[in-house]
């Protein structure tokens, strides 16, 4: 268990770096990183069930200019890690997914603060670069400071993720197993409430608000397909 929690933390570090510092391949998007982590831990459906609503919850926050959105990637990693490692979690997909999303959501603003701290601390690297560039002997080493930025961010992410993953997985597991049986259905409905709020987030941030005809038409087609699929498959 401990090894798997460390694995989840290390995976979280890579995901955290992808958000800003490294490549930005968007493997850090919740729908992607949640599913991949779920697959690594043997339950890709749980990963997708948690990643999909979190993908759109903070849809209105864009990383434009110096804006730092809540870190939905790290909370996805923590929630999927906890949900996949809770004993017997695979048999209770929606209650477990709902429980771990509710448990980890408050960490989103905390991880956002952490990202802001990294960006503030990087000013030091920029000043050091000025000093190095002043001399022809050391000017060639300025590039290394950029790489040091990745190392620093990785260090801060480890400091955040290892305790958070331990707390979410062990603490979450213990709380979930201590809950009365009746709470399971409440947690299951909580999951669907989160899905509904996410759908609301999508509706309130539509790209072309005047095209209600397109949205309504597509919605009806989607609903009909869903009904056909649920009846015949």
């Amino acid at each position: 268990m401990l090894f798997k929690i460390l694995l989840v933390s290390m995976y979280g570090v890579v995901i955290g770096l992808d958000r800003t510092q490294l490549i930005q391949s968007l493997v850090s998007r919740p729908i992607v990183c949640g599913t991949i982590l779920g697959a690594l831990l043997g339950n890709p459906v749980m990963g997708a069930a948690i990643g999909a609503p979190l993908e759109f919850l903070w849809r209105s926050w864009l990383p434009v200019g110096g804006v730092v959105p809540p870190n939905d990637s790290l909370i996805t990693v923590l929630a999927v890690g906890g949900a996949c490692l809770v004993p017997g979690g695979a048999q209770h997909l929606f209650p477990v997914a709902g429980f771990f999303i509710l448990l980890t959501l408050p960490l989103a603003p905390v991880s956002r603060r952490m990202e802001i701290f990294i960006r503030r601390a990087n000013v030091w690297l920029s000043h050091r670069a000025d000093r190095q560039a002043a001399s022809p002997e050391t000017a060639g080493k300025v590039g290394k400071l950029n790489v040091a930025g990745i190392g620093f961010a990785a260090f801060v992410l480890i400091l955040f993720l290892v305790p958070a993953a331990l707390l979410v997985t062990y603490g979450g597991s213990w709380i979930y197993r201590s809950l009365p049986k009746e709470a399971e259905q409440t947690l299951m409905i909580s999951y669907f409430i989160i899905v509904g709020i996410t759908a609301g987030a999508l509706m309130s941030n539509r790209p072309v608000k005047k095209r209600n005809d397109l949205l309504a038409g597509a919605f009806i087609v989607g609903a009909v397909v869903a009904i056909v699929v649920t009846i015949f498959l």
Partner: protein
Amino acid sequence: MLNRTTLFKMFLRSFLIQAAWNYERMQNLGFCFAISPALKQIYGDPQVRAAAIRRHLEFFNTHPFLAAVLVGISANLEEAASRGEANPLSAGSVKTRLMGTYGAIGDSFFWNTMQPLCSLFALAALAVDPLVAAVTFLLLFNVPHVLFVGWGLHGGYRHGTAFLEKLKNLNLIKITERLRPVQEILLGLSLGFWLIAAPDLLNSDYERYTATVATLVACVIGTFALKKGIAPLWCVYVTVALYGIIRFSI
């Protein structure tokens, strides 16, 4: 003339443009890191090279994917400056003039259109298989992303400021506008499908009906609350708490 190895190094380094993003001069270190291989090849004299490095440590912030275009153009202008055909400060003035515009275009195209579009495609692909959804997202987003960075860097270096016209002809703003209705259709399809199909994965009829009603009510609450500027986090907890109170009081 920069060799292929140098250009390839610059291409790889363009993906680390935000590695040391800071609140004072934002992407300055990343930009300097990306253009360093070119400066090393262009300027043999360490004094002149150090002066060029200092010039590229100034404030810089644009969209990370469009930064590659400015890295390429700056390398072209530095090369011209080393031959005495351009002012050494011209790269800096081009960066200053374009970073704001490119930042806005990149944010609108990549963050506000491409990324949500890929997310919606992935959401639709979840109906097939979760891993197919993840792979769909990564391919749809990263093939254009990597090609754009490579094309922008190479074109910027080869054509210099003349490349700006080519980039203008690409008309990312128009592509963004054309992709928005597609986003709308995918949004409708995904919502229609999942709001009906997801609760159907439950075991009993009672659970299915409760989940469907809860999802739809939460969707209405979410739409209005978020439009009013209420944080999604509060929206989730307050709605869940309200449900809990109603459930245990009945």
